[in-house]
């Protein structure tokens, strides 16, 4: 077993266990922390897949910003008694649906012919990715910045405290 394989299996086990933690722990803060662990493991997958830039972005945006926002959201919605919302009565059905889905997906993965390793796995550097983003994918890139702007304005408008006499 090579080092890369060992790292992959460790990351995979950690990611799945942490993801299980996200969806099963009753405590919301614990599941947020487990989510951070999963996101870091996914960043590790990106490193193994030779895309360092995405790994950096994953750690910065996901494990950094998104996780912080979620923790903030938890803090602000805690208020008096924290709604330690019960798991809900439909968990057996959810388990059935998710179980069926995982069986179907894994069967599909195992049964299909995937292209074998071509041996030309190249490292996509930041320069190459940036060039592609600004040359071939310029329009989607600009649309994405517009999406971010709209989301920003929308979030401010929705969550803003209303002033006296207004609304």
């Amino acid at each position: 077993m090579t080092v890369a394989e060992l790292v992959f299996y460790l990351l995979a086990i950690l990611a799945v266990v942490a993801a299980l933690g996200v969806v099963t722990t009753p405590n919301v803060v614990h599941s947020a922390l487990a989510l951070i662990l999963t996101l870091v493991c996914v960043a590790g997958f990106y490193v193994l897949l030779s895309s360092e830039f995405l790994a950096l972005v994953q750690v910065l945006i996901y494990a950094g910003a998104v996780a912080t926002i979620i923790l903030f959201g938890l803090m602000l919605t805690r208020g008096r008694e924290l709604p330690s919302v019960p798991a809900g009565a439909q968990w057996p059905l959810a388990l059935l649906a998710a179980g069926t889905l995982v069986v179907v997906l894994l069967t599909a993965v195992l049964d299909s012919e995937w292209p074998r390793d071509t041996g030309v796995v190249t490292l996509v550097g930041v320069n190459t990715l940036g060039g592609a983003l600004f040359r071939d994918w310029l329009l989607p890139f600009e649309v994405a910045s517009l999406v971010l702007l709209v989301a920003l304005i929308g979030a401010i408008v929705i969550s803003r405290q209303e002033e006296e006499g207004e609304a």
Partner: protein
Amino acid sequence: METAAEQIPLESFLFVAAVIFSLGVYGVLSRRNAVQILMSVELMLNAVAVNFVAFATYTDPELFRGLVFAVFVIIVAAAEVGLALGIILRVFRNRATANVDEVSELKW
């Protein structure tokens, strides 16, 4: 010197991503706290992004379209989290609950 991706088969990544995606589906269906549902959605988005990057690395190394797509997935996820938490905060302020079952006015 082989890169790490040449030593690990593509199926391994698809396998892990499928398991994480299904866990996300389970979370969305079983949890009742809005923030936890949001976190489960993040799990599903991440699993899909891993798939995109894996396919880009193994089958499309010249154009790496999947990698670009993963960048956009992350952008949209960031926008989605900000907006969703704004909505959750607003609902919590008006109704003092984060339980999605108690906010069912739009349910048919």
